[in-house]
């Protein structure tokens, strides 16, 4: 979970969460969920990109929840800024339906995961924990997209990955695309679930490196590999 400490959640430092969401109802909803939990701490909530950039200059969140559709700019700008200024912050994109195109764009810009807007409160907290612990959520559709990009890279058309996926990474993505969970995949490939997560992470990193992010960002990604 968090570095070093093996104590229970009550004594672990609370995860500092910043929310960037222009829909007031949704913002209040998130606020309510986050404040109700003892494990997370809402450190900032803003409703537009400019305010988000200002806030990022002043505070350092552990997890950033950002909506892509902001009134004054695209959420991708906020993601990129946060990745630049706070490399160790985990960024989750708030997505309505998790459509692959936007999710992949966000990951390219530096996001680590995505969150569905209608997630149940328990799910939200669990996902924040998960991403803070280094997990990378991936849906079958996103896995399919990544596999397609890999195929395109081999025929050198369209968007390409920085380097092609390894066989293992491909196997993992294919099983994800078939609907298997990480646990099931770990059993099928005879590795630990953590290893499976690592493969996914690596895939995301290849996606990020292929977009024009700074080398320092790569370092941050490597720093996320814990345990």
């Amino acid at each position: 979970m968090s570095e070093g400490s093996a104590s229970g959640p009550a004594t672990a430092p609370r995860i500092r969460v910043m929310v960037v969401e222009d829909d007031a109802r949704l913002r209040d909803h998130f606020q309510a969920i986050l404040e109700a939990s003892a494990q997370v701490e809402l450190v900032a909530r803003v409703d537009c990109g400019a305010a988000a950039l200002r806030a990022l200059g002043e505070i350092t969140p552990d997890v950033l929840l950002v909506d892509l559709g902001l009134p004054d700019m695209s959420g991708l700008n906020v993601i990129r800024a946060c990745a630049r200024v706070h490399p160790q912050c985990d960024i989750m994109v708030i997505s309505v339906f998790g459509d692959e195109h936007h999710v992949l764009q966000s990951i390219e810009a530096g996001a680590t995961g995505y969150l569905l807007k209608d997630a149940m409160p328990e799910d939200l907290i669990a996902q924040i924990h998960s991403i803070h612990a280094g997990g990378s959520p991936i849906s079958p559709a996103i896995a399919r997209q990544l596999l397609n990009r890999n195929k395109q890279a081999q025929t050198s058309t369209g968007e390409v990955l920085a380097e092609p996926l390894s066989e293992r990474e491909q196997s993992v993505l294919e099983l994800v695309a078939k609907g298997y969970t990480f646990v099931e995949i770990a059993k099928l490939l005879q590795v630990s679930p953590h290893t499976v997560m690592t493969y996914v992470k690596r895939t995301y990193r290849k996606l990020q490196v292929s977009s024009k992010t700074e080398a320092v960002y790569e370092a941050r990604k490597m720093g996320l590999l814990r345990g």
Partner: protein
Amino acid sequence: MRLASWAGCLVGLALWALPARSDDRPEPLYHITSVDMAVEQLDSATTASRALQVPAGLQWHRVTLPRTEVRKAVLGALHSRVRLWVRLPADAMAVASTSRQAVAYSAYMYASDHVTLYADGLPVAATDDTLSNDWNLPVMLALPLYRETQAGAVLLSFECHVTTMGCGVPSFRLGSLAAVNSWFSLQQFWRVDGPRIGSMAMLTVGAFALLFWLRQRSQQPYLLFTLAAVLWTLRTLHYHLPHYPRPELLFWWVTDSALNWLSVTVYLFAFRLREERRPRTERALLWAALVLTILNLPPGADSYWIQDVIVNTGQSLISVLITGLLTVAALRTRAAEQFALAAALWISLAFGVHDALLQTSSIDIEQCFWLPYGALPILGAFIFALARRYGEALETSAALNASLEQRLASRQRELQFSYEQLRGYERERAQSDERQRLMRDIHDGLGATLISTLASVERGSFDRDATIAVLREAVDDLRLMIDSLEPLGQDLVMLLATLRYRLGPRLDRLGLEMEWRMAELPSLPWLDSHSTLHILRIVQESITNIIKHAGARHIRIETRVNGAISLVIADDGVGFDPQQQAGGPGGRGLANLQHRAAQIGATLDIASGPSGTCVTVVLPLTRADAPGAGS
């Protein structure tokens, strides 16, 4: 390269001219224009063609040559035979020469034959009387090398049939054999070889024209030209043919009549070339030519009236008329080829007039016949006309090609445009169909749910948890619809995987264990968004049923392929009795499932017992109807 070829030409010319210069001086050739002449009457009893010796008692008188002896004045009765004697002057003969001497003449000798040369009172040379065209041939007679005296009398005798035109006596050339021969050869060329070459040229071009016409039957002028070439050759045969074919009268008939038809052919050619027709004039000309030809047949040809007056006049009239008509046509249309043709005809006409004068001895009988050379301007005019025609045809073809290309291009554009339109319509139709299906799906699922929830909230029968559950179901269904609209490429595996991904956390929370067995499924060509939605709803509802009613701990979702795709949703719950449920409240759900399966052409099989339930959906690999055709 060009310089070399020019140098070569010059050298060749020099070499050719050189031998001429190598002569010390040309040998002398005497032109004898003053002789002594005597007329000897022949009676019908004299059958010998030539006198074996010079008769005595001839009345000599000096005459100037060439001359025509007119019948009444000198010769005698019409159709009688006379022999003209010519004595060459002694002083001319006195010129000594070590080589052989010869005498030659070249003139229109229409009435004379059996020409004999006498030296020392005896015949030494004679013309070949078998030649048919001797009236046109130049004659060279050689004196023997040895004579008693070089200055001895040299005489020539001509036998004449007395006609209305009298008898012609030409002037003579006297000199060494070599000198006379070169003069003779020149005369031979102009009188015989030239016409022959002209005819050959006409025939050759005519042959080409015929070959062309055989390939392009519609191009009449070419055939007409071939005809003209043949007629021309027939017309001028008599100038150079040494032996006329038998029967000779028929030959003369053909030769004479050829002129008519030649004129008519030229007329037709001129007008057909411009693709004009003068039906009446053409018919009149053809009839006139036919009449004249018939009149000219051997029985008629003998009669002076028919032959000389009617036929000849008629022919001349036709020629003049045609020339005039073509000139008028040329002036009207101002076409170059018409002018060329008219000019050629005028030249031929002029040549004809010259020859006519020659034939009537109105001009010097030593003139060559010009008419055979009248072919050349006409040949030139023909070739000019046809060449222009060819050039025009090429231009027309090129222009036609260009316009054809243009039309093709514009037609292609039209086609492209209408194709695009068609595609646009099809797209719109497909989109509209899709939209309608979507509206129906929304109405059936989301619409119904929201409206019924709204109704219950308004009524006040507001159960918070129930409402939350219903709204969550609505969001789930909305998700399903979004999923179904995504372009999945007919990938059933992706659909089911996404569904599981979404439902997974919820099942985990409820403590349900999921066993997931997803095989590689072939892509289904009939899987459109409509069918996708139905499959998802079937699975979703089955899972919902399990959650609500089965009280199960374990769910198995599995796909199998054997001829069709089997999708199995099994649980280990309490099960139910399908028959019983059919009538009860849960029955509607089951009926719904069956209905959805039927809609997509799948079969639904429910096996339920106390140890669990198994819902099997069998999806065909192909469907007979087109995707989305059904409702």
